[in-house]
């Protein structure tokens, strides 16, 4: 039986040039089913669930008579929790700016001058192990009596004024997302021919002019993609405000979602905040997909 099938198969299928392109519809569906099932059951249905919950009143969502729809959760966000939204956006914006300012020269030097790129790559994975370890490490460094104390004393700054403050939160967030920025800008830069810069220099352009007129326009797609990626990662910030921030930074949305939803079981409000966070993320994703060119699937 199997031997028959094996010898018969080539003759049966040789007519078409690419047999695999004519795979039966059922087989395609079967191969895609696990992935579709996983994302529908554990992402799309839960997202619909929290959207519904955010529009229903207090405890009526699970009552047998059905939920009473309301906008009170969103009204509460606008009236009382707007600072939380704003502080989240502020933190993400500052971290993105820091990454852009420090990341562009880093990517440029990395692409044009550095030969030990594998070493750089290996060391750059450390931030990617997660925000928790970065925040933990910085908190230890900045703690009174910690390794940074002599330096801060010399500068005349109190430890606590740095430790629980906006700059330390932004610094930690920027460290975490820095590799994404460098990756995006670096990819764009490596596609720019170095002779263009030399030509500009020969024609009398100053370095600043070369940067503004040659490099910035030619790497715009990569830079925009980097900005949006970093911003998208930054709005979900959780450990950094908690471990390094003052009360003001601790209002960041992700932490409030946890606090309201899991600790205080105020499901309506926390799901509404989750939806706000999701909307910001989707806007950013939509923009970044519009700007990014090289799609994987044609």
């Amino acid at each position, binding site marked *: 039986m199997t031997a028959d099938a094996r010898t018969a198969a080539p003759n049966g299928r040789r007519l078409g040039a690419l047999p695999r392109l004519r*795979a039966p519809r059922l087989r395609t569906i079967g191969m895609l089913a696990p992935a579709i099932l996983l994302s529908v059951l554990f992402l799309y249905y839960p997202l619909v669930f929290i959207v519904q919950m955010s529009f229903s009143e207090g405890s009526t969502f699970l009552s047998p008579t059905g939920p009473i729809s309301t906008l009170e959760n969103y009204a509460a966000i606008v009236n009382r929790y707007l600072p939380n939204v704003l502080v989240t956006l502020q933190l993400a914006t500052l971290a993105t700016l820091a990454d852009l300012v420090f990341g562009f020269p880093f990517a440029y030097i990395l692409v044009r001058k550095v030969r030990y790129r594998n070493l750089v790559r290996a060391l750059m994975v*450390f931030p990617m192990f997660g925000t928790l370890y970065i925040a933990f490490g910085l908190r230890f460094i900045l703690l009174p009596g910690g390794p940074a104390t002599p330096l801060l004393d010399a500068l005349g700054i109190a430890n606590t004024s740095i430790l629980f403050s906006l700059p330390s939160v932004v610094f930690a967030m920027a460290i975490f997302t820095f590799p994404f920025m460098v990756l995006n800008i670096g990819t764009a830069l490596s596609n720019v021919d170095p002779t263009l810069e030399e030509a500009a220099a020969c024609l009398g352009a100053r370095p600043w002019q070369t940067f503004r007129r040659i490099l910035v326009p030619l790497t715009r797609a990569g830079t925009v993609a980097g900005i949006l990626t970093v911003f998208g990662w930054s709005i979900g910030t959780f*450990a950094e405000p908690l471990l390094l921030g003052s009360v003001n930074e601790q209002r960041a949305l992700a932490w409030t*979602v946890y606090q309201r939803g899991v600790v205080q079981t105020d499901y309506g409000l926390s799901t509404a905040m989750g939806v706000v966070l999701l909307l910001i993320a989707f806007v950013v994703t939509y923009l970044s997909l519009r700007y990014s060119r090289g799609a994987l699937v044609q």
Partner: protein
Amino acid sequence: MVSSRQLTNIVSHAYIWICLVVFVLPFLALLSYSITGSSTAAGSTYALKNFQNALGTFSDNLVWSLKISGLTLVVNTLVSLPAGYAIVRHQFPGKRILFSVLTLPLYVPAAVIGISLVLTYNFTYHLTNSMWGLVFAMALGTFPLMLIPIVVALKDLPIVFEEAAECLGATRWQTYRRIVLPLIGPGLSAGLLLTFIIVFNEYLVTLFVHPPGLTTAPLQVFNLIRTAGLAPTTAALAVTMQIVSFTAVVLFLRFFGNRHLKGTYLL
């Protein structure tokens, strides 16, 4: 006398190194703290006692982390391999949209995944007390990171090998197992590496959906910092996690190079 060109070079390389030091600084600080910090249990004072304490006290957490990572790797492989193959090699309408739909979990903030899953587990799926709830949450967040390198690897693989195998009489399963799988091996292992280092260090979604009594090592680090403040043993646990992750990355780069990580989360 240093020319201006040399000066630019020196400044450039110094800049790169300062940035690299900043990246590694949190890790180095924790490492020095975990080696020199005095543990509450005063007594023996050799350098690695905090690690010994950490590995003793937190061995349960480490085992849970490894177990969850392992199960997630299996689920991700079973989900992403066939899906990646069908996306690249089969013709069907709406391919682009489907690919976007499948990679969307990457763009959803972890806290949103967490709150939506904890509520559905609680009210609809009744998975709150099951380890599988956590595994599926991890798989959902990371399977796109496996799908992308597989799709890239398959696109780079000419179809002639599969055609040749078929002409020589191989069955479909033989072709998958003996031809396709070895040839996309590096791409597949890039996905495995990404999944491992993310799930192994994940604490945020875990914080939302972990079943009672199951605390992974990163979550334990988070809980201890929040409740007990900083302690050298906690630092030792965090350092251990990072060293294990870093070893995985270095081994991967050594065996496969960085080519297969392109277009994904890592460089």
